[in-house]
């Protein structure tokens, strides 16, 4: 982790009609930091994430992602971030190698780079023998690991992960987090949402979003101390129990 700021938001707000999905959220994320973004269903996580990756225009407030403005530099933002969600990650009817090459191409790597990085990636994941198998034949955990590797194949400044480990078995889940640590130690900032509260502990800092407002933002240890609880889950329940909103 360095002192360089890669995400900075100021009073970021999104309203849909008279409904305020995200209300004046402000925070900073440093380079190489693993930043956990927690919240109940409907707390505004997805909306906030969509604004940060430049696919949803905020109603008011500012944010800079990798130094680019989210209002008018969304194209540059997209070049400097990776994104992976639980729902969509890979093309199931293509082989592993085809997926790798396709995504490398989408991220605008040159032909030489595509060749070099895809063989690196396949080696790192130990998929040499399966490179020409269809992705649909892979177990879920492997798909998610592959999807993550692809999300960072172009060496982005920041990678956004939306519930990346949902439904994955406990061992693969931990292997996945090892990959996250490795990416972070290479200077990639990781912005991650999760429903597994133990995973919140692996983050450098976490925020807990309740009803579109940031209710807590600190390191897991500091939060547990502040609320005098033994786990992040208890902190979460304590803060989110008071939520009024249900959608």
């Amino acid at each position: 982790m360095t002192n360089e700021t890669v995400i900075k938001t100021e009073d970021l707000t999104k309203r849909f009609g008279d409904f305020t999905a995200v209300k004046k959220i402000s925070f900073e994320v440093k380079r190489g930091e693993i930043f956990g973004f927690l919240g109940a269903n409907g707390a505004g996580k997805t909306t906030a994430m969509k604004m940060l990756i430049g696919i949803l225009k905020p109603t008011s407030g500012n944010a800079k992602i990798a130094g680019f403005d989210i209002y008018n530099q969304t194209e540059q933002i997209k070049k400097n971030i990776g994104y992976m969600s639980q729902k969509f990650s890979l093309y199931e009817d293509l082989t592993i190698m085809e997926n790798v090459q396709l995504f490398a191409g989408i991220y605008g790597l040159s032909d030489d780079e595509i060749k070099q990085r895809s063989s690196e990636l396949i080696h790192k994941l130990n998929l040499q023998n399966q490179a020409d198998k269809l992705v649909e034949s892979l177990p879920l955990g492997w798909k998610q690991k592959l999807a993550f590797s692809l999300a960072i194949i172009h060496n982005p400044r920041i990678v956004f992960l939306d519930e990346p480990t949902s439904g994955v078995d406990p061992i693969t889940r931990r292997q996945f987090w090892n990959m996250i640590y490795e990416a972070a130690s290479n200077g990639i900032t990781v912005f991650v949402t999760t429903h597994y509260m133990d995973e919140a502990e692996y983050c450098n800092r976490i925020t807990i979003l309740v009803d579109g407002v940031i209710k807590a933002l600190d390191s897991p240890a500091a939060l547990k101390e502040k609320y005098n609880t033994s786990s992040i889950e208890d902190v979460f329940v304590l803060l989110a129990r008071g939520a009024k909103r249900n959608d």
Partner: protein
Amino acid sequence: MSAVEIKNIVKKYSTKKTSVTAVDNISFTAERGELFGLIGPDGAGKSTIFRILTTLLLPDSGSAALLDYDIIKDWKEIRNIVGYMPGRFSLYKDLTVEENLEFFATVFNTTIKENYELIEEIYKQLEPFKNRRAGKLSGGMKQKLALCCALIHKPKILFLDEPTTGVDPVSRKEFWEILKRLKTRGISILVSTPYMDEAKLCDRIALIQKGKILEINPPKNIISKFERNLFAVHSPEMFKLLMDLRSYSKTETCFAFGENHHLVVNDSSISAVDVKKYLESAGHPKATVSNIEPTIEDCFMHLMSK
């Protein structure tokens, strides 16, 4: 007579290119009034087992009975006595909360009034939104509505397929509290979940991985059967700690567990003091090591790597 009794069930899915054994020779029994959990990650075969038991799928081989009704022969009777909540949200999104409930009451030949006392407690939480379309509810609320719909005909056995997946911890807690109270009403409940921490809330659990049962027992027994020493290890540099612990000669497995790493050692004579000594020599002077009782997740991972 058991609520659920399944014997040697096998189910394969074949596509043109691959054949996957979703359920691989599984047998277990769930007693009446029991809260029985199927615990395992996606792809373990949980949903397939539920679909076979609710007569939606035919097994390739093996047999199963619910309250002595055979799942193949007596499918009509079974459909009268079970309540089923599928893994993905399966209500009418463009009907309101109330309309959905009324619709399913009609489908099950009953009325909301007739069994209202059973769902009253859950429905009260939904009441403020009763005129909202089901598609616009939050995750937790959707699950509660789906549960109401599955309960409306007072089923004898309730099948809940991953009711808490993707639901936030607060709603999950509430949901499990509801299940506990339903159990006191004499309803047998089979629930599946990928969240290992929910296992301790069940009377008995089956740990499932890749279509096979790793272990069936009450959670306590599973934990007490864990035959190795387990340590929770903490230090300011967690990632380096993990690497160093993995290169420790006495380590069998080591995984991150929230704020600590859980270390399983291959030698029962190793104590917390021994581990601490090793870590000090490996450059972790501030490391803390304590002997702990395993969680279900530790047990699952241990069984998985066997």
